[in-house]
């Protein structure tokens, strides 16, 4: 059994990509094209995963979405909508998805491109701490399960297994402050609807002193929007 695929197979995938968004039953068309390229196991799975996710996203009114980034098929762009009744509501979060050659026997590598304030996601790199992306991955999972799990993670953080210690600490000690900060980050980076003029003002105070916008936001967020302590940290 071999991983990877030839150039002729690649051209077929492009065709599928062009055809499939218009066809009525995505799953059916998926099966059809999978049958055309039946050699590479990982390719089949990838395709199925990809198309199924496209299909779900149409049905579920764009809650999750996957797109190709370029034509080497190992890198995808994912999108999830912030779940309702969370600080992320109304935001759209972009993900970088790298599909390894051994997919689906090994998990895809996923990280947030959109900056986000969340205990299990690094506010600096976007790295995600989620068990199914590590040791709890199962070959039967798909890109769709990954994106849905990430959405669930946004709705229910696990501060005891943190990726970002600062955020996790705030989450545990000052829930209200955490919610406001996360909502503010959603507004700035993910197109969320809730503007916080108080926070904006404090950031402007720091940017006026020559601090870069994002740096100012990180410092203020880390110190519960205490302008004095954030300034101290930035200039020490």
């Amino acid at each position, binding site marked *: 059994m071999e991983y990877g695929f030839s150039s002729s197979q690649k051209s077929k995938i492009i065709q599928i990509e062009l055809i499939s968004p218009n066809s009525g039953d995505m799953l059916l068309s*998926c099966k059809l094209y999978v049958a055309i390229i039946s050699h590479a*196991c990982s390719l089949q799975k990838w395709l199925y995963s990809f198309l199924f996710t496209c299909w779900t996203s149409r049905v579920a009114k764009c809650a999750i979405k996957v797109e190709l980034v370029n034509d080497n098929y190992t890198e995808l762009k994912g999108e999830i909508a912030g779940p309702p009744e969370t600080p992320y509501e109304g935001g759209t979060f972009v993900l970088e998805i790298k599909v390894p050659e051994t997919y689906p*026997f090994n998990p895809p590598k996923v990280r947030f491109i959109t900056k986000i304030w969340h205990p299990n996601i690094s506010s600096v790199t976007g790295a995600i701490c989620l068990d199914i992306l590590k040791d*709890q991955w199962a070959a*039967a999972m798909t890109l769709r399960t990954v994106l849905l799990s990430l959405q669930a993670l946004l709705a229910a953080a696990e501060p005891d297994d943190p990726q970002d210690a600062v955020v996790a600490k705030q989450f545990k000690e000052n829930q209200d402050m955490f919610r406001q900060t996360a909502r503010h980050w959603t507004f700035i980076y993910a197109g969320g609807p809730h503007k916080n003029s108080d926070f904006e003002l404090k950031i402007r105070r720091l940017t006026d002193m020559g601090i870069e916008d994002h740096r100012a936001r990180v410092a203020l967020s880390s110190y519960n929007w205490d302008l004095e302590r954030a300034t101290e940290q930035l200039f020490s």
Partner: protein
Amino acid sequence: MEYSDDDCCYADYYNTEEDNDAEQMDPSRTDPEYFVYECLTVEEVERLLNESVEILSNTLQITPSLAKVLLHAHEWAIQDIIVKYRGDSCRLLVLSKIKPPHPPEPSASRHLRHQVCPVCVASQNSDRFSCLACGHLFCKDCWAMHFEVQITQGISTGIGCMAQECEVLAPEDFVLTLLSRPSTREKYQQFAFRDYVKSHPQLRFCPGPNCQVVVRAKEPLAKRAICNVCRTAFCFRCGTDYHAPTDCATIKKWLTKCADDSETANYISAHTKDCPRCHICIEKNGGCNHMQCYNCKHDFCWMCLGDWKSHGSEYYECSRYKENPNIAHESVHAQAREALKKYLHYYERWENHSKSLKLEEQTLQKIKTRINNKVMNASGTWIDWQYLHDAATLLAKCRYTLQYTYPYAYYMEAGPRKELFEYQQAQLEAEIENLSWKIERAETTDRGDLENQMDIAEKRRTTLLKDFLEV
């Protein structure tokens, strides 16, 4: 080792009779480092493991493959497994990840001629599908690919089902019937063997490079085992370099600390010091800490640079760290400096003895050439000179223990016990330096003197271990 009073009164009674014959005494009581173990080859270990598998599979009427999963999950405690199996077999199988917590629901598609594999989403004939006890069906190609990927990542006994949130493990026979490539099958068996040995409380791999030997001991004690093939000496419990009198946890802490603080300690590991009298630069080229300046012939101690004369007697206390009694009242900075000073004191000695050991290895080689020359020149026979070789070997053994007394002392709380320890440590160190000095300078066959010194050094070593080695 601890003995209850009841156990030892009879032994004492018999031992007193045999007291005049030291050879006959129970070595576990006279030698604090006594340890019973055997070195096994891979074939012998396989036979040993297979015996356990056979007993369990015969007693419980299960396949050898399942018996292996059970044994691996329960540290090879056969009796324990049998009792649990007879008590509640279902619970045991679920806990050992052989069966799922809830019995699988019979799916409607099971009996169809064609099925879609959830992994590769290809539709295939039903006979191309397999499942574990959990009933999750996948096509055989995907199972094989799953195993290949897991085995390349070094996983063998831990390979599980491919379904989401399913923890059922794939037993050996299931994996081997689906794996076709001989190289992967072989790898799987190697990795599984490694896992079995690691889960077995009586077995340890020899840590020697490329050594295949497995050491077996009835009890997993922190005692010295020596591989009979590559001669590597290691602690049976933690598998690292033998470290008596320090225990496994302490030596780990010490080595981590040394690795972290290596930069700080680097400056002291310079090989040269100046002679305290004539200030000529001296490089230490032998193991002995009793130095004699080649220029002014001044005798001094390499550790403290003090006059050696004060070291020859019981005043030897170069090994002891003198704590500042007022430290609690000092500032944080002073305390930090004091902590570093204390660490450096112990580290310096630890590092110094480790270097001395290496230098004395060279001495051993030199002694071998010297013995040959002496014998060739007909000054004494080879047997006459053999004692020098024995002395050097003993010196290495003593210095090794001495090296490992420093981490022990570093983590010891101040008090009378530490004082006793440091007293004994100083005694041992003094005798070792005497021995080292005598070996490096032995010119005539002054065998009696050297043998006497050897005896004293070894006595000091065993006394210290007897009093402080807690295993």
